[in-house]
């Protein structure tokens, strides 16, 4: 099986600096626009930072669900690509994702999903540069484990909170 780029995520190492969002939006939008970033850090409680981006499920439920064939899988990177001309902003892909990862762009309302920057993701560079490694890129064979990362961020947050704060973590979330 072919190796593809995947972004490893370790929420516990995320500081919440959100430089990943800054460079994502610089790359895709040309300017700093955190709400348009394809990687989004959820921060439901101080210290509980959740790294939220496309997990590249092996069965691509969002692509399957799109009623107008606006979503496709890149043959090289295996990232989900959005055809913004075709996208009707119906939100079906958002609902189809087990992690509620896609979102409608705050500017044009079109579906927005991580495209791995064509195979060389910007977000991981700044995270690794800072020594955090909350996200970093690997080239690996596709694997069913990837889909496990498509999880609603508040559900992940509950796990992180317990990991950080023990019993108190149950309370704060």
């Amino acid at each position, binding site marked *: 099986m072919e190796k593809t780029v995947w972004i490893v995520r370790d929420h*516990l*190492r995320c*500081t*919440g*600096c*959100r*430089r990943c969002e*800054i460079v994502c*939006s*610089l790359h895709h*939008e040309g*300017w*700093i*626009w*955190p*709400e*348009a970033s394809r990687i*989004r850090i*959820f*921060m*439901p*409680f*101080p*210290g509980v930072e959740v790294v*939220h981006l496309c997990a590249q499920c092996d069965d691509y439920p969002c692509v399957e669900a799109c009623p107008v064939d606006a979503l496709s899988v890149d043959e090289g990177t295996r990232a989900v690509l959005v055809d913004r001309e075709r996208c009707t902003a*119906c*939100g*079906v892909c*958002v*609902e189809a994702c087990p992690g*509620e990862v*896609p*979102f*409608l762009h*705050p500017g044009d309302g079109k579906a*927005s999903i991580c495209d791995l920057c064509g195979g060389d993701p910007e977000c991981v560079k*700044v995270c690794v*540069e*800072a*020594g*955090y490694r909350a996200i970093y890129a690997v080239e690996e064979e596709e694997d069913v484990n990837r889909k496990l990362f498509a999880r*609603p*961020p508040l559900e992940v947050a509950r796990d992180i909170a317990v990991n*950080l*704060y*023990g*019993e*108190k973590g149950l*309370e*704060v979330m």
Partner: protein
Amino acid sequence: MPRGYAGRLLDVDLSEGRIGEVRLPWRTLEEFLGGRGLAAKILWDRLGDRWPKVDPLGPENLLLALTGPLTAFYPGARICVSGKSPLSNGVVGSTASTEFALELKAAGYDGVIVSGRAERPVYLLITDEGCEIKDAGHLWGRNGEETLRILNREVRGELSKPGRGLPREPGVIYIGPAGENRVRNAAVMAKLFHAAGYGGYGAVMGSKNLKAIAAKGAKPLPEVAAPETFKVLWREVHRELIKRDRFRRWGTGYGGYFVAADTSSEPIRNWQEEWHDERGFGGPHFQFKFWVKPYHADFNCTTSCMKISCIKTGRWRGDITDMPDYEMEAYLGPNLGVFDPEGTIHLSAVIDNLGHSGINAGNTMAFAAELYQRGILTEEDLGFKLEWGDVEAFDRLAHLIARREGIGDLLAEGTYRAALRISEWKGVDVTPYAVHVKGIEVGAHGIRSDKDYPTPIGYAASPQGGDHTSTTRDAYEDMTWSVFGDSAVVCSFCYHDPLIWEIARAVTGWDISKHRWCTEHGRRILTLQQALLLLGGPDVYWDPDRDFDNPPRFYEPLPTGPYKGMKADRETVERMKRDYFQAMGWDERGIPTRETLERLGLSYLDPHLREMRR
């Protein structure tokens, strides 16, 4: 349209329930930038003619929450909170790190001006669609943890639109019970353990029945003057910050040992001493037992000096706070006679949750404990024993102050005002034990050993009094990370010279240089602050001949440690003060001269200061 700015401020009158917007003239922004500088200017414009009559805790005062042009662009996004201070009766620019600043800008606002007083507790919700005044009955009385939890859930629910993707949390500034009950030195809080602590603006929010301001914006950051240059500089400044390994690794969390053992400038038992060599209070004892998140940061920050602590076992299980950072370590540790990391973390969590400012409330509690030590305050007065090092007793006292119960009501007036009242009540002058400058309790960096960064006039000559983040130096360098940082509204721990000035030019397009700032803008801002401080009132007026001075304690010799016997020298202080005032263009008593006011474009202040001059 000025670059780097969203271009408008929200203008909310809580008495009338009216929400408006203001656009400030380009020239005002260029002269005062944002944050601290702009706050002083807005306060002067709106309240200047009747300043001495404005009660800081009355509806007439303003609560300002302002960003600056560099906020969210430069590393370390912060919000600057201000108003007429209920402690100094002047203006303090008090900043806290929080995503609230980013969200405000992303919603299209540079800041919020709040006037009046709501009939019932309210909070403000700011989005791209504008601002709403919302009921906060269910939040009033809640501590920090509960407030954040409820607000995050509530706002997320409100912003949720099926099929559009998950909404994220808002950025929030809020007060705890201390602010609600108008504890004069209460903080405006953010993110559980971040505080805009100096100035007492938590009490100002409380006096307005304003529990919180939440913001969630979806817009891009504003346009800047030179975007491509900015992008290059942004990467460069982060590369520089990432090299600061020791600070990134430890934050200020190793200060609780170092500042005492090395520089001998840490408050111990209400500054009766400044030296200790308690290795059990050293950084590793915090780090390896309690730090659960060794790198924690705020928006666009790679300094990540924050580390989160959590107590997971025993009677204080579930306490969450920052490292604690050095100021909390000192003020809620050795200054209360506590040399146990766990006890200090517990008190820090208590203080944060109550919405006290750790430095200021820690100072007031130590003041009370010294009075207890001296037999001036008794067990009968307090209802319990207040021995140095008794964590549970200080925990209890912090709650009493926050609720203004028993002795807490008196201590809730802050160290200076409490000292005046206790002196009257007990018939003993207790003001020599009050370690404050112009009503602002002094930060945890002493001057007696002359080994720490504040100069002998660092606090005495500063228009922000005891604020350790804005100490007086030479009328040049002190305009940089403190006055510029608080007005550009970025974190001083991310300050990089010269990159911050280059980024300031790329963002605003204005001719901002370090030299120009230090000789013109910075001095304009400090001079305006000095004028408002001198005008003071209505309950307190500072006497330039008496009050621009160090606390009496700093003239007592250090009793222990390698710098035993050292103290502030009055002649040196007087000489340095004269030099400083002269460099600032103020007269020998610290009153800005007419020529200086003219040169800085502040001539409108002259009629108000004329009578003060000799």
